[in-house]
């Protein structure tokens, strides 16, 4: 019992790196995020199931006069979202190695990509709204709800990034390093989610 680690008291780069090296089991913050992801996954499971349920119930999909979604832009955007997992992973590595500055820069790059992604997505969301509107039928209902829920999750990730970018300049602590780690975990989840959502969104065009 003499070698008790008190990871929260690691408030320098070296100390954080030492904790990351010595850690034998996942900390409670990781478990909290993992379970949050589990419940959000269940939410998206329900949204996606609802999409296919309504599709199976409908003789024509999408219903009257709604053009099937175009493939190019959504697929390219999803590629961009998935690509942003790379700087997130680099940020996590840097943070766990106790290097605050590289972590900050990698996060900033990821945030830039994610913001661009969200902006373009919102643009195409609103142009779809102009094209066929919310109120038309069950297809438009689930289409906009599914995409809207996804965009909201991207927004939450962006807020998490913003918090980290504000906190990291005053130095690395174990708490912040863990926050980088679970934020990266969250973004991996959002990338998978984005892929599933786009596959569903484009389902009428396959």
């Amino acid at each position: 019992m003499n070698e008790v680690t008190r990871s929260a008291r690691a408030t320098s780069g070296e100390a954080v790196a030492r904790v990351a090296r010595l850690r034998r089991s996942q900390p409670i913050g990781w478990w909290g995020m993992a379970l949050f992801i589990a419940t959000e996954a269940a939410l998206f499971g329900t949204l996606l199931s609802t999409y296919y349920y309504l599709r199976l119930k409908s003789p024509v999909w999408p219903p009257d006069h709604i053009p099937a979604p175009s493939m190019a832009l959504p697929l390219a955007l999803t590629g961009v979202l998935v690509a942003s997992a790379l700087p997130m992973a680099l940020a996590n590595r840097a943070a766990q190695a106790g290097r605050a500055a590289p972590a900050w820069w990698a996060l900033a790059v990821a945030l830039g990509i994610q913001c661009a992604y969200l902006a373009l997505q919102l643009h195409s969301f609103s142009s779809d709204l102009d094209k066929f509107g919310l109120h038309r039928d069950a297809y438009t209902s689930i289409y906009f709800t599914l995409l809207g829920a996804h965009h909201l999750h991207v927004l939450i990730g962006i807020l998490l990034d913003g918090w980290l970018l504000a906190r990291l300049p005053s130095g690395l602590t174990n708490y912040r390093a863990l926050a980088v780690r679970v934020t990266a975990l969250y973004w991996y989840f959002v990338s998978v989610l984005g892929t599933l959502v786009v596959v569903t969104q484009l389902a009428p065009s396959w």
Partner: protein
Amino acid sequence: MAIAHPPAAEPHLERLERIWEERPGLLGWLTTVDHKRIGLLYFFTALAFFAAGGVEALMIRTQLLAPNNGVVGPGTFDQVMTMHGITMIFLFVIPMATGAFGNYLVPLMIGARDMAFPRLNALSYWIFLASGLLIYAGVFIGYAPNAGWFDYVPLASKQFSPGPNIDFYCLGLIFNGISTTAAAINFIVTIFKLRAPGMSLNRLPLLCYAFLAVSLALVFALPPLNAALIFLELDRSLGMHFFDLVHGGDPVLWQHLFWIFGHPEVYIIILPAFGIATSIIPTFVRRRMVAYALVALAEVLVAFIGFGVWAHHMFSVGLATITTVAFAAASLVIVIPSGIQLFAWIMTILTGRPQFRTPLLWIVGFIVFFLLGGLSGVAFAAIPFDQQLTDTYFVVAHFHFVIFGAAVFPILGGMYFWFPKVTGRMYHERLGQASFWLTFTGTGLTFFPMHIVGLLGMPRRQYTYAPGMGWTGLNLIESIGAYVLAAGLALVVVNLVVSLFRGAPAGDNPFAAPTLEWSTSSPPPPYNFPVIPRVSSPYPMWDVDDRLVDVRQLTEGEMVLEEGHETPTTSVLDADWDEVLDMPSESPWPLAVAAALTAVFVMLLTKQVIVAATFAAVGALVVARWHAQEPQQA
């Protein structure tokens, strides 16, 4: 057995007291992160909602006391009946079982000094309180939800329910769901990571297994409900068409989504009762539970299989026969883990030396009603039987035996059982037994005749009935029973309130119970345990030498962890020593976040979307501020 602290312990105890003590007075309660105080807040709030739900029940029974009665009109009856269901399920049983009992007991039982996320725990409570008040705001302005607790469309759609009643339902329950999800995650992480070193998963008290199963079920069951509520609210406020047949939607979709939540919910309601039973039975029969491993597995299995049986609530809506048969089969399978537990409880009592004191009496009542309600429940897996009795009082009889007789009796027994721990005083034994018999009789009188009127064809949810149908006498008995039941519950409250002031001092462990909450003083100090306890079985208080080790370690200042708000974390399976956690201390931010979220939901209710978004942004800023306080600075 209670072991006195040695004099050498005094400086340690004083130091711990100084570290963990919270602000006195009202401000202390508003900023508290102590799981015991949050548990008490949950307890009194849930009890108040129980009283409200009870008054609604009495209004229903008074209206149905005689045919063509006019105590409440049809419109009011719909609201009262719906609010009775919502209140009892979302505002009483879940918060009472998980929020109050779980919060107070789980950290104490696993030898931890708090929940894994104490501030999140406070946030859960404040959101629960606010969501309950939001739903009841609808009652006070005359727009309570009125489409039944499962709120079927198309009745609940804008076309047939144009008022704001159903908006209170949708938004109130989404709000409530945030609280419950946060609490469930908190319980899982606490049970996984904060167990005392040595409490490997095969030494986890069975009550904690039950709460673990409940929490896991909640994490996966609430999202379908929330999705359904969001769809319905979007249909109602933005004119979408999820449930609108004319525009390609499907009303049956609501039923699927609701019951994918709703059936796991049934087990979510009853599993804490199973857990409480496994705490009370060993204590009063003086032996360990029969088949510990099987009972633990059965508790988790019930929660798991509960996800595969939802469509048995929908046998009469015209699903494909193959679907119906598959769900009927799944519904039969769930009898197996329930049966395992039933046999284990009964065998433990039969092979022990039972002392039928008040808490055990409630558990015996629970077993009786669970058996009866369980048998009538299994019968619904027979599809023609189900189709015949759907929407009759037979269903009401079945689920009240299970949800009141089986789920609430252990909660009442648990109130008596842990009263000495929480207050330091004993309840009145004779009066306690009287309150049990009165409630038991009332429950039987109220709900047993409902089986018969159901078989005679009386439909549920009707505000009145005609004379000469053969239902009149039985309904009168039911209503009398409801008043007897209310008297029994009042006697419980009287007993506990009077005992709070007049009860004999209880000591640390008046029942010689086996789990760790009894190792500390009554009421427990803010730091729970002066020494992180040593654990080598699921019944640590019956391992006397371990408790002697605790005393020796306290004398020598080992395992006291007195450098700050500290508690150990351990590995998930084996509870090997991991590290020492610095826990946050009292914080005003959870209350502030809950206030911002309340404003968001009120604004959504009044359709002020821009204002709601502004408050959401304020909430996000408060969350950022909250997390600027890092554990090492606490």
